[in-house]
């Protein structure tokens, strides 16, 4: 139970920690006060509790595939928010954005963090809730939870300061690359959820690396947490992964084009705080 707890909590925490770190770095680069993260975390925790307590009902939706569909929906909304966010980030790195655009930018950050926390947090709450019913597993589970969360949060903290320590030109590029990977990961997971819900057809396996890098190994778990690694992904998942990354790249380009063509906009000056 100890190791299972470590792995599960670490994976869930790391996903949220990466998102939070990268978005906090972008907020800091743009001079946005970090108060938004408090609202996002609070909303995420409330969402996770509601989601976890109603999981039984949610699972009954859509002919008993409600959980898979809701997870996929959340992941797709996160990708959408990230796409809008990156487009605005690309725009605001070149021109001064309006208050309205700034508000959308902050809303996207809050939505991404709170939705990610809702999904990851609900899984943690359900897991811990189940374990607490078996007294002999409480101690190893809680110890494992502490270690998993500790490693995940530590990775997020070091990532945050690592990105901030990069040269100003590279920090947004690295941040956007990480968001593209997260987006690809979420797109792949969303497709997997929808396939498991029978909303999408099963497709052939893209590759099978389970012999030399099984998902259950420590490296496999780490790669899953960072990049959504799977030993036997389907073709549809592979396509979704690439599409998720391309969405981010494309939205960055759209933001860039809008800035280049937006000669009517003010020249680059003080950013909206």
């Amino acid at each position, binding site marked *: 139970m*100890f190791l299972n707890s470590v792995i599960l909590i670490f994976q869930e925490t790391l996903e949220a920690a990466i998102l939070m770190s990268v978005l906090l770095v972008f907020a800091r680069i743009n001079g946005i006060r970090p108060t938004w993260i408090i609202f996002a975390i609070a909303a995420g925790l409330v969402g996770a509790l509601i989601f976890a307590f109603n999981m039984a009902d949610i699972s009954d939706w859509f002919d008993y595939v409600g959980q898979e569909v809701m997870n996929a929906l959340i992941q797709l909304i996160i990708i959408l928010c990230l796409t809008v966010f990156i487009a605005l980030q690309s725009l605001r790195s070149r021109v001064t954005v309006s208050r309205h655009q700034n508000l959308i930018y902050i809303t996207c950050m809050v939505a991404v963090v709170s939705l990610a926390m809702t999904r990851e947090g609900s899984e943690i709450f359900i897991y811990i809730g189940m374990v607490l019913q078996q007294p002999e597993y409480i*101690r*190893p589970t809680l110890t494992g939870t*502490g*270690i998993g969360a500790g*490693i995940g*949060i530590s990775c997020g903290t070091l990532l945050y*300061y690592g990105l901030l320590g990069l040269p100003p030109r590279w920090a947004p590029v690295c941040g956007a690359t990480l968001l593209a990977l997260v987006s690809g990961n979420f797109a792949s997971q969303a497709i997997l959820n929808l396939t498991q819900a029978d909303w999408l057809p099963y497709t052939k396996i893209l590759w099978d690396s389970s012999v030399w890098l099984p998902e259950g190994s420590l490296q496999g778990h780490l790669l899953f947490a960072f990049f959504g690694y799977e030993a036997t992904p389907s073709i549809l998942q592979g396509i979704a992964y690439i599409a998720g990354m391309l969405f981010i790249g494309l939205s960055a380009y759209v933001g860039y084009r809008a800035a280049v063509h937006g000669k009517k906009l003010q020249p680059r000056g003080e950013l909206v705080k």
Partner: protein
Amino acid sequence: MGSIRVFLIATMLATMTLFNFVATLQGYQSSLEEAERLFDNHLSQMVKLIANLHVEHMASNLNQSSDLAYQLWHKDQLVASSANSPKGFITELTAGFDYANFNGYRWRTLVHYAPDSDYWIVAAERTDQRFVLAEKVIIKAVTPIVLGIPLVGLLVWLIISRGLKPLRNLSFQLKHKQIDDLTAVKIPDLKDELEQVVQSINDLVRRLGSALEREKRFTADAAHELRTPISALKVQLHNIAEEVSADSQSFAQLKSGIERMQHLVEQLLSLYRFTPEEFANQFERVDIYLLAQNVLAEQHDAFEARQQSLELEGSSCYIEGDPFSLGALLQNLLSNANKYTPFGGEILVSVECSEGKVYLKVEDNGPGIKPADIDKVFERFHRLQKNLDQVFAQGCGLGLTIVKHVTELHRASIDILPSRFDSGCAFVIQFNEV
């Protein structure tokens, strides 16, 4: 990077937690492997014990626990077995360790052959029981590491806060240094790393003090030395006024030039008087509205000459300040409005109190100030318009510098905003009310 303290605490704690926890996981894995070896040793001792027991004593000497199963085979005949062992072979009779599944559990098995008696002894232990037992022991060792992290965090916070105390002291001293305090910064128990910084700051402060002193002396000397010849020139000008014709252009230009020079000297003197070191006058309670009334009355002729409408609105509002310098502030603002507002223009002075603040506004419907020029207007010798033909009276570019200076001396703030008229600007000074 934000706060150094937060950065150090967060990164140190994150690094320590990461390495501690990863090492803990590594230790957990190693401990499990070690426990597995111990359990295997225990199993092999059990097998040896079984081999040395007589069959009839076996049942009474062995603990019939549910997590240990054994069988004793002789020439493919089951001679003895535990109650929880299967009827057939637990595992293939090949000497050594292996795994087997029976009774709904996974078991660790050991097969031993005793050549003297031609017995095959098979013993098995439940793997889940072994794992639970091993994990229980290891978790007891791991839990304090997890629980210790908040304590480590607290210690890191205390140590870093203590380590950064001299830096905090330096920051506090610099932040709370008075505007006219050019004495050296002194930090008790100065650390080596900060010694050079403090030395450089003190050196800078010393050079700044010397520069200010030189500037002050130069301004004072220059102004004083210039005043005397200008007064003499004015006397001479007065004397020759009767000798030249009234419409002499040369005489008019000479008169204008001398007046401009006198104005420049007066402004330089004002600037000198209001430097922080010399601003020793005790502040007093000043009614800004009453002060504005007086200044407006004094300057009324200048506005009338340009047919400008000059109005004052508001009510009595009190601040702590120096009446003379505040009068100079208002005079300069009005003079500025008078010069830059066209003939027949409007100038409005207002005084109002709101939420502990006193607002003094001077608004006009002149050409206004371009946003790009707003920062420059307070610079010394900066003229609002390059084309001096547009300027009605003489100016030397020191008026708004004096305004800014007096504002700072009164811990007030000044903003340039659009005026309430169709054009022009509003100088808004915000004082603290008493």
